[in-house]
């Protein structure tokens, strides 16, 4: 293994980790603020990818298509919040798991009804088509770097929103005690819609950016959702710092694992370990710290 290759894989792992972070942060936010377990979160990533694929056929300017895809997701997420999610906030975990699982099955099939079973492909914008030289011999796709950058910016924006704005203050207060926030005159209903839309948009952003890298097809968000759930558990539910640390750790573990384990253990066992490594890590973390690395209270 050469230094250049390690560097390239590190960039890949970082990029994967940031996409996971976009997913995980939405899961942890929805749980922290609305006490909602949302298994339909992967559908939001998928919708983002489908919307950019559909928008790209109508709109040639990539930035416009990008914005259109996010806006469509925002509309879909408001509808979802009002129709399904809102009554769920006060229900038990089991009901939430089932209803949102139902939503994800329905949305997975709905995209087939609209766009068909064939996978769709999205071209990355031309101005991001080049490569960047990492070393003298290794170059790295500009588009992948851009993904990492945009995801990091989105994370930063979220942190600024939560830490520095009035809305963020209300969201944090809502996570502490929603009833009191409501009693203080904040429109909790609107606040919850806002949080749901933000978390959906973060997932959709991941989907929009992944569009050119993986096949856009039904169910594409589900494996990422399951990984994001693992990230949330490893980091500690409700902890943004935990989500970031665990996302990057999982992204790097997964990416390097795919290279290292088959090398060490042979193809078959190595591949199994590479695929399962995140869940093995999760089991180890739970065995030692039942509420995750940065979780301080039982969820």
């Amino acid at each position, binding site marked *: 293994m050469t230094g250049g290759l390690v560097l390239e894989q590190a960039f890949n792992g970082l990029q994967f980790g940031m996409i996971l972070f976009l997913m995980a942060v939405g899961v942890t936010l929805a749980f922290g603020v609305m006490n909602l377990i949302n298994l339909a979160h992967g559908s939001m990533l998928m919708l983002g990818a489908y919307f950019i694929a559909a928008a790209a056929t109508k709109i040639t300017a990539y930035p416009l298509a990008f914005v259109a895809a996010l806006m469509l997701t925002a509309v879909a997420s408001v509808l979802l919040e009002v129709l399904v999610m809102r009554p769920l906030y006060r229900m038990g*975990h089991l009901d939430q798991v089932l209803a949102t699982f*139902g939503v994800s099955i329905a949305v997975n099939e709905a995209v087939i009804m609209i766009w068909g079973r064939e996978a769709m492909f999205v071209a990355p914008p031309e101005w991001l088509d080049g490569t960047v030289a990492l070393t003298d011999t290794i170059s790295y796709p500009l588009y992948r770097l851009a993904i990492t950058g945009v995801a990091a910016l989105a994370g930063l924006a979220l942190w600024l929103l939560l830490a520095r704005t009035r809305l963020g203050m209300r969201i944090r207060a809502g996570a502490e005690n929603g009833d009191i926030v409501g009693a203080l005159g904040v429109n909790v209903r609107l606040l919850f819609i806002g949080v749901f839309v933000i978390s959906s948009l973060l997932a959709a952003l991941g989907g929009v950016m992944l569009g050119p890298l993986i096949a856009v097809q039904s169910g594409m968000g589900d494996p990422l959702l399951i990984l994001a759930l693992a990230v949330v558990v490893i980091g500690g539910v409700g902890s943004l710092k935990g989500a970031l640390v665990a996302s990057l750790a999982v992204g790097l573990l997964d990416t390097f694992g795919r290279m290292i384990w088959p090398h060490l253990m042979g193809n078959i066992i190595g591949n*199994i370990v590479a695929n*399962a490594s995140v869940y093995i890590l999760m089991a180890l973390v739970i065995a030692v710290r039942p509420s995750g690395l940065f979780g301080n209270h039982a969820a």
Partner: protein
Amino acid sequence: MQPESNLASRRLAIALGLLLAIALVVPLLGQPYYTRLVARMAIFGIAALSLDLLVGYAGLVSFGHAAFFGIGVYCAGLLPMLGVQQVWVIVPVAMLVAGLYGALSGLISLRASGLYFIFITLAFAEIVFYIAQGLRMLGGDDGFRLPAPTLLPGGASLANPVVLAYTMLGALVLAVWFARRLSESHFGQVVVAARDNETRLRAMGLSAYPYRLVLYTIASALCALAGVGFANLVEYASPASMSWIVSGEFLFMVILGSAATIIGPVLGAVVFVGLEQILSALTEHWLFWLGIILVLRVLLLRQGLYGLLTGRGQR
């Protein structure tokens, strides 16, 4: 049992008797499609019932129960490769392997609670899923065709739908009997007490953990029994049988019928399998409607089918 529910329980008993009678008659009609449907309902009935022990009685929402189902499927597929076809070897081995995995993963999972428990059970199921998927000599993601069916003592083959239907119905009745005994036993009472108030249980000097672990192991082993039946029904073993979708479907069956009733989840499985057949005959996009029904069940039908039948609200 409250006195006012006397009528209700009689109504339920009549409904169940009718259902069982229909299930017993259908395989005699010589229609393989309907015979297989009965077998399918009995198989998923066992799976849903085993999950109800966890979800209903212990309050442990497992989102990885399909792993144990899949272990049963793979045992029924793998053992014939070693020349073993007898049901009295295959079923105990499947239940032992599933029980072992249940006990080992339960040791860790049961340390977590609430949301963490839901996701850690999902993680342990994903591990099994990836092991099955990674076994390339067994077809990897595609799985493999069962080399030979499971044989009953006397040589009757579970590849015969009639034999399979009656075998699985018998197993289901046994499982219902066992689960009822278990839930009424001292052991079952402790598990329910731990669900309702763990602090009080601890104050009485009892730790919930070992009880839950034993229950988790039993439920895991029981689900593998359903898996063996399923492998014989579809004559195929693949990782799809242990995907997270299947785990979700099991939970749906439990909740559709209403949890902590044993019979409810069996009814839920019957209705689920029926729905699946009817919807898929009506439209290619039946999964869409299944998802919608799932959402509506949670939002509107609060007390489940069992509650609908007995006129009792959900506890």
